[in-house]
Each structure stands twice: as structure tokens, then as C-alpha cells.
């Protein structure tokens, strides 16, 4: 039998390789922290309900890094994504439920697209083993559609435009512990999928450019949307979407150029690690701050600067290295689009910086909500902060030597700093902006266009239901009853004179026919 036939449990293989290792470490770390945090902060009565979803999600979220074949990968992907619905809706509010529905819808679509791509790749490779899949699809006639499916699926996972709302939706209502895992780990599975599944250096340039452009657009637009929302979690969500847009740029690079692919992969890994940890720290930080008062609160707010700066890409932070790696990757390509992207890349930091400022402001405004002892949350948060600070120094050096080397140069320092300064300046300026501009504050609900889409679907459903009801009534009403006419016809047909005359006429017909 060929290896791609379903063989139940025997189809599932798990292994650890070079690509998987950093992700495994990241996922395992984040899910563990998140589990402990969630356990500590969830009231005892709700723990069972939360962990009923948390455990499978975490299981999938960690083992996905180990998945060695298409089916395992799909399984882990699904196992992580579907129960996450329970985490998002844990609050049981109407908004949470709505968010959960949208999330689940997009997840289901993403899963479907991924499955389709996996099936095609398995067929083309005649194998299920992940390393073979991407290679085989590169030469297949079904290459384009497969890559499109993969990109769409990954795009939904990482919140690429126009689905940029999916990440804010999934963090906003989720309890902090779980949200940190979703923020840090969940979207990174998309990054892992890029590495595992996207073919390198085989696509036409246009594909690459389009993906890069989409990534850039997401990076900018998500930042703008994020600054216009009202909760710290939503801001972080949009920030994630923006950052993941940058990862998509790296993926775009890898698509067309085999030479640049290692650089791009390095960038993706670096970005994933950096962003996963930093974003997790920020999500938890928001919650920690809300639990603290007085000096501790001030200290915590100060500590938030570390992951925030990392995201902006401040020198000596993981973000700096990651961004540098990305720049290198983009720089490896030649042409109008890559060069434009290259030129625009630093500008994305303005958006990130603005988001961080906004986050800061919003977090600072939060008041204490709970009286649970903050000791365990703080400890866990500290662990994450430490990871954020240290991870850059544990970098596998051979992925991005150049980034490390140039990290400390003055020019690159400046490059990293000016966007942040612009953002601060802009924010300052905004305080004196006219009233009209200030009204923009908070006009974007977490989920943006997705909410509109969901509302449109509901409206269409109502319309359909109404139409089918009224349609049925009219059809029944207008149907003419022919029974009386039929009965009357028969009555006159069997009346004696008519019937017997008809018979004699039949006789004549037969005679006439017979003697033609």
C-alpha cells in the first residue's frame, strides 16, 4: 500500500528536527506558563470548565512542533485550534460568544484549506512525511493552487488582511493565562506551517511580491486599527496581526528565492521566538498590572517596557535581531517591490511603537479587579520577562550571523530608534489634536470587518428565513384546486346519453378506421 492511505493510528508519526526544536521549546514554555498562570488565576469552580478546553488545546499546541507527517500536523493543528473556542468563550458574555463563533468559523475554514493543501501535497509527494511534502509540491502542476490554499490557511491563522480581526477577537475575551498562550503560541503555529509546508524558491516572483505586499499592508493597517481600539488586549491583538504581517513578508521572500530562503527561515524563526515571548509577556503583564497596586504596580508597568521595546525593535532586544534578520532576507531579493518593502520596513516600527504607547496608556488606566494573591502570577510573569530578555543571547547563531554582528553598530541603533521617536512625537501631537480627530479613539471594535461580515451573514440568514416562509404561503395560496373540475367532467362523461353517444361515436371511429 502506498504510504498516503489512511492507516488510523499508524499514520501518526512524531519526531523532532532542527526546525521543530525552537518551536517546541517556545510552545512548551508558553503553554506551561500559561497553564500555571491560568490555574492560579481561575476560580476553583471554573477550572474544570477552562481546562477541559485548555488541555487538548495545549496538547495540540505543543505536539504540533513534533508532528512528522501531514496527518499528525493536521491533527495537532485542529486539536489546538478547535478547543481554543472554549477558552475564548470562557467569559460567557455575548461578545465572547460572538467572538468565539467568528473565531470558530475562521478556524474551520482555515482547517479546511489546510487539509486540502495537505491532501494535494501528500498525493503529489506520494508520502505523508512533512519534509518531503514541500519539496514535491514545488514541481507539481498543482503547485499554485496548493500554495494559495496554504497561504490562505496560514493567513487566517496569523490574522493577515482581511482577517486581521481574528487575533484581537481571540485575545480580548479570553482569560489572561489562556490568552497568553493563544497570543504567544497559537499564531506561531502559522509560522511553523510556513516553514514546514511552503515550498522554497519555486514560485514566480509575482507571487512573492504579492505576499510581501500583503504582509506589509497587514503590518501597517493592523497597527492603525489597533491604535483605534479601546482595550489593551485588543491593542495587543492588532499588534500581533501587524507583527505576523512581517513574518508573512519573510515567507514571501522564501517563496521565490532558494538562496534567500535560509535567511527568510531564520527571520521567521527569530520573529516567532521573539514575538511569542514578548507578546505573551505583554498579555500577562496587563493582567498582572491590574492585580497590583502602589509601587508594585508602577514597577510592573515599568517592566512592561522590556517586551514593548523588544516589539518595537529597540537595540539589544530580541526584536532588534529579528527585524534585522528580516531586513537581510528582504535585501537578498532584487527588484522594485523588494526594494520598496525594504525601504518601508523600518516604518512599520512606527506603528508598533504607537501600539505600544496606546497599550501602555490603556493598561495604566486599568484598575485592580481581583484580590487573588498576585504572587504566583508575578512569578510566572517574571519568568517570561526573563525569557524575553535572554532569548536573543541564546540564538542559534548560524541562522542570522549578520544580524548579531551588526546589531551593535551605531547606524543600526539609529535605524531602530527613530521610528519609536516619531511615534512618541506623534502621540504627543495627538493630545493637542482637534476634537474631531479624538473622536476616532475607540471606533474600531476588536474584530473590525469580521464583525461586519458576521452581521451581514446573520442578516442574510434572517432574510432567507423570512423569504422561504412567505414564499411557501403564496405557493399554497395560489394553487388552484382542480378536483371539482375533474369530478364534474367525470359526472357529465358518465351521464347516460352523453356516455352512450360517446360510445356509439367510438364505434363509428373504429369502423371508419377499419374500413379505410
Amino acid at each position: 500500500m502506498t504510504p498516503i492511505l489512511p492507516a488510523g493510528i499508524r499514520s501518526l508519526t512524531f519526531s523532532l528536527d532542527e526546525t521543530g526544536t525552537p518551536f517546541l521549546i517556545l510552545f512548551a514554555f508558553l503553554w506551561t506558563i500559561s497553564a500555571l498562570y491560568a490555574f492560579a488565576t481561575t476560580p476553583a469552580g471554573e477550572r474544570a470548565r477552562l481546562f477541559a478546553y485548555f488541555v487538548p488545546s495545549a496538547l495540540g499546541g505543543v505536539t504540533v512542533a513534533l508532528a512528522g507527517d501531514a496527518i499528525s500536523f493536521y491533527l495537532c493543528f485542529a486539536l489546538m485550534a478547535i478547543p481554543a473556542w472554549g477558552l475564548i468563550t470562557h467569559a460567557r458574555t455575548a461578545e465572547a460568544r460572538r467572538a468565539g463563533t467568528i473565531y470558530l468559523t475562521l478556524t474551520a475554514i482555515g482547517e479546511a484549506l489546510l487539509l486540502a493543501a495537505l491532501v494535494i501535497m501528500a498525493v503529489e509527494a506520494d508520502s505523508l512525511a512533512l519534509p518531503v511534502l514541500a519539496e514535491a509540491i514545488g514541481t507539481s502542476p498543482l503547485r499554485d493552487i496548493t500554495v494559495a490554499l496554504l497561504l490562505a490557511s496560514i493567513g487566517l491563522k496569523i490574522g493577515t488582511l482581511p482577517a486581521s480581526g481574528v487575533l484581537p477577537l481571540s485575545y480580548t475575551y479570553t482569560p489572561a493565562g489562556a490568552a497568553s498562550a493563544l497570543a504567544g503560541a497559537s499564531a506561531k503555529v502559522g509560522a511553523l506551517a510556513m516553514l514546514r509546508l511552503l515550498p522554497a524558491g519555486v514560485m514566480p516572483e509575482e507571487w512573492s511580491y504579492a505576499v510581501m505586499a500583503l504582509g506589509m499592508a497587514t503590518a501597517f493597517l493592523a497597527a492603525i486599527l489597533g491604535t483605534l481600539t479601546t482595550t489593551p488586549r485588543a491593542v495587543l491583538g492588532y499588534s500581533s496581526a501587524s507583527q505576523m504581517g512581517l513574518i508573512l513578508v519573510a515567507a514571501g521572500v522564501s517563496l521565490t528565492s532558494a538562496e534567500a530562503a535560509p535567511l527568510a527561515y531564520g527571520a521567521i524563526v527569530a520573529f516567532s521566538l521573539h514575538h511569542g515571548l514578548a507578546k505573551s509577556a505583554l498579555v500577562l503583564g496587563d493582567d498582572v498590572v491590574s492585580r497590583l497596586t502602589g509601587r508594585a504596580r508602577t514597577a510592573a508597568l515599568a517592566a512592561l517596557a522590556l517586551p514593548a521595546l523588544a516589539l518595537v525593535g529597540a537595540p539589544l532586544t530580541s526584536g532588534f535581531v529579528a527585524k534585522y534578520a528580516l531586513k537581510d532576507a528582504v535585501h537578498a531579493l532584487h527588484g522594485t517591490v523588494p526594494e520598496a518593502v525594504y525601504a518601508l520596513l523600518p516604518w512599520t516600527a512606527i506603528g508598533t511603537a504607537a501600539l505600544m504607547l496606546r497599550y501602555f496608556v490603556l493598561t495604566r488606566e486599568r484598575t485592580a479587579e481581583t484580590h487573588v494573591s498576585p504572587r504566583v502570577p508575578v512569578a510566572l510573569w517574571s519568568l517570561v520577562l526573563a525569557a524575553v530578555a535572554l532569548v536573543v543571547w541564546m540564538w542559534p547563531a548560524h541562522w542570522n550571523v549578520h544580524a548579531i554582528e551588526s546589531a551593535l553598530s551605531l547606524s543600526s541603533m539609529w535605524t531602530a530608534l527613530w521610528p519609536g521617536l516619531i511615534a512618541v512625537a506623534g502621540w504627543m501631537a495627538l493630545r493637542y489634536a482637534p476634537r474631531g480627530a479624538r473622536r476616532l479613539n475607540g471606533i474600531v471594535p476588536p474584530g473590525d470587518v469580521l464583525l461586519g461580515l458576521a452581521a451581514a451573514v446573520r442578516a442574510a440568514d434572517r432574510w432567507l428565513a423570512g423569504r422561504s416562509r412567505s414564499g411557501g404561503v403564496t405557493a399554497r395560496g395560489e394553487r388552484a384546486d382542480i378536483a371539482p373540475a375533474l369530478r364534474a367532467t367525470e359526472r357529465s362523461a358518465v351521464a347516460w346519453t352523453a356516455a352512450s353517444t360517446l360510445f356509439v361515436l367510438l364505434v363509428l371511429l373504429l369502423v371508419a378506421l377499419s374500413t379505410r
Partner: protein
Amino acid sequence: MTAWLPMLIPAIAGIATFALGESRGRARNAVNLTAAAMSMALVARLVVHAYNGTVVASTIPMLPGLELGMSADLLGLLFAAVATVLWGVTLVYAIGYMDHAADRARFFGFFALCIAAANGVALADDPLSLFIFYEILSLTTYPLVVHTGTPEALAAGRKYLFYALGGGAALLVGVAWLATIAGQTPFTPGGALTTVSGRTAELRVIFALMVAGFGVKAALMPLHGWLPGAMVAPAPVSSLLHAVAVVKAGVFGIIRLVNELYGPDLATSLGVATPLAILAAVSIIVASVIALRQDDFKRRLAYSTIAQLSYITLGTALCSPLAAAGALAHLAHHAVMKITMFFTAGSVYETLHVKKVSQMPGLARRMPLTMASFAVAAFALAGIPPLVGFASKWMLGVGSTQGGSVWALLVYVSSGALALGYMVPILTSALREGDHAPARGAESDPRMLWPIVTVGVLTVVLGLTAGLPGSPVHWAMTAIAPSFGGWTP
């Protein structure tokens, strides 16, 4: 003669049930359960024979120039096994479900006759024999659909008959027409019409007629109208209709038609396979979307059934070996999944009178085992590995791709997404806090609970063991391989 027994044993059990009458409940149960056990043993024996290459067959003369034939080949035995095994399970369930109901003799009698007819359809060796049992199935199901005798039941029964007999009429013309141009055409893997040359237009019309005939029971849109209405029947009947016998007879007919009457090659070269595939694809999507909108539990399941049946039709119509095998495997897999769901629907109705999804909050705590089984089946239906639904969906997808029909793959995966869309809300509704207090003591009659758990476990076990010799997947591939010449999986 042995080939007739899987059909005859339930038939005799049915007649004996009538003869025993209403009052002798114990004897009735004993007769039916014994017959189910005997049938299972018999089918198992025939399967072993068939795996060893011995196909037990037998014919009797019937119409001039045509014989009525039964043949226990692997393809038919798969369906027969599904029908027989799930008959046993459903019997236990039904004994619990119908505990206080009236007219049980009638109910169990026709139930057994239905299974007899389904086994007849499964093992029929030629179009005529298949048609005959197909129609008997329509007839024996009718009393079950209208069993309660309420106006809704009678209306649903009328609708069911209207569709079933209309389809039967189309099938009759198709079968008769084929017989006039090709004579006796016993099903042959790869196609039985080798003697017919030319006459492409006629063959196309005949194909269309037969598809119309089988399509009614296979609930191929737009012939599906009867299925949601038929939900008024008692739950075991719904299970039977949807999971075991009736609808499967339709898709099984299509499988025989495409693979063993026309043969994949002829079906492709006549250009009849693709329209069928497109019809099935449309059915999948439309039915799934409609299912999203149903609040009535059983209606939602019914539309899900329509979509899932078209999985099988689509897989068969693609004329690609793995897709065909996947379709056949899905026949068995869907049976297991859907029967779990209908058992659940029946159980929650019978125990708590819950009929709508919106009435479910609290159900998960009130009936944890039942709902857990349902959840497993629901995820299996959505195609989550390593549950049973994934195995066949994967085969179907891979087969579509291998056959060059990526569009079909996309249909399958979209439908999987939609399945999540209509299944998960049931679960979420049940998981909410609600009116139903946690169970004190048993969550439902044990004769209803344990069959549910059994089939629920089966959805896991069959998924985990997919591909092992004897599993539906392996079985289906072995059965379908001869239709595709030298194909070996």
C-alpha cells in the same frame, strides 16, 4: 442458498414477529436478537469466504430471460455487515426506546423486514434483483415512518412514498431499458456492459434514470425533500433510515451502478460521471449550509445526512480508485457516526423531551456519557483525525486529487468546515448552563445508553484501526480494487 440467508433470516424474524403478536414481548425480543446474532455470524462467515476469494452466489429464475441473483461479494457484504451489525445495536436500543410504546409487533416486524430488504439490496447480483429489494425497502419503511399514526407522521410518510416511488419508477424504467438492450447484466467489477456497443445516447438516459432512482434514497439534491420530514418517525427508525439501511441503499446503488454496472471507464467516457459528481458536490454544500440553519435537532442531523451521503456519491462519481474506495468506506463510517447521533437525539427526546438545539443547555451535565459519545461522533463527522470520519474523508480527498479533481477535494474540505459549523453549536448549546439538572442515578434507560456508548466507541476504534485488514477502509479498498483493473492500493 447461503447467499440468500442474510436476507432471509431477518425476513423470517420479521414474519415471526408479526405472528407472535403484540403481547409476547419477551419472545419477540428473543427472536429478533437471535436473528441479528445469526445474521452477524453468517455475514462474518461470508466475509471470510469472500476475503479468501470464494464468492457465494445463487440465482433463481424470475422474469423471462432474467434471473434473480444473490452474490456475497466483498462490496455487498460491506453494506450487509453495516446493516446487520447496526441492526443488532439498534434492536437493543429500540427495545429500550419502545418500552412503553404501542404496536411493537408491527414496529419490530417491519424493522426486521427493512433489514432483510437492505441485505437484499446489498447482496443483489444484478440490477433487477437490486431494484426489487430496493422497492421492498421503500415499502417496508413506510409503516415505520408513519408508525405513530399522527397527522405529521402520515404527511411525512406520504412525502416519503411520493419520492421513493417516483424514484422507483425511474429506476424501473432504467433497469428495464437496460435489460432490453443488454439482457441479464450481473454486476461485474469494472463494468457489466461489455456486450453493448454504441447506443451511447440510450446508455446516458438509462444512467440518468437509475441515478434518479437511487438518488431519491441517497437524498441527492433536489431529490432529498423526503428526508427531513421523515424525522417524525421514532428515533430507532430515524437511525435506520439515516444510518443503516434506507439512505445507504441509495448510495450503495450508485456505487454498484458506477463501479460494477457501467464501470468507471464507461461512465467516464459517456460523460455521465461528471454531472453526477457536480450534482453531489452541490448537494454537499447546499445541504451543509441548510443544516447550519436548523434548530430542530433531528432536522439538522437530517441535512447533515444529505451532505454526507453526497460525499459517497461524489467519491463514486469521480471514478478514481481511492475516491471510490473512500466512498465505500464512508458508507460504513458514516453509518457508525450518524447512528450515534440519532441514538443521542432519540435518547434526549425520550428522556427529557428535548427536540431543539436551543433547548439543550444543561444537557452535557444531565447526560454526560450520551453527549460525550455524540461529541466524538460529531468531531468524527467533521473529519478530525484520528476518528473514523477522517479516514474516509482523507481517502476521498486523496482520491479526488489523484483523479485530477482538486475541486472535489475543495468541496470535501469545505463540507468538513461546515460540519464543524453545524455540529459544534449543538455541543456548545449542550455545554451551557441550563434547565436540565445533573442526573440523579442513570442518565437514561441503560438499553438506550449502552448502544450509544458502543457506537460512540466504535467511531474511535474504527478510526484508530483504519487500514488494518478487515477494517472498513481496508475492506473497501479490497472490494473496489477489481473495478479498477490492476489497481492495487
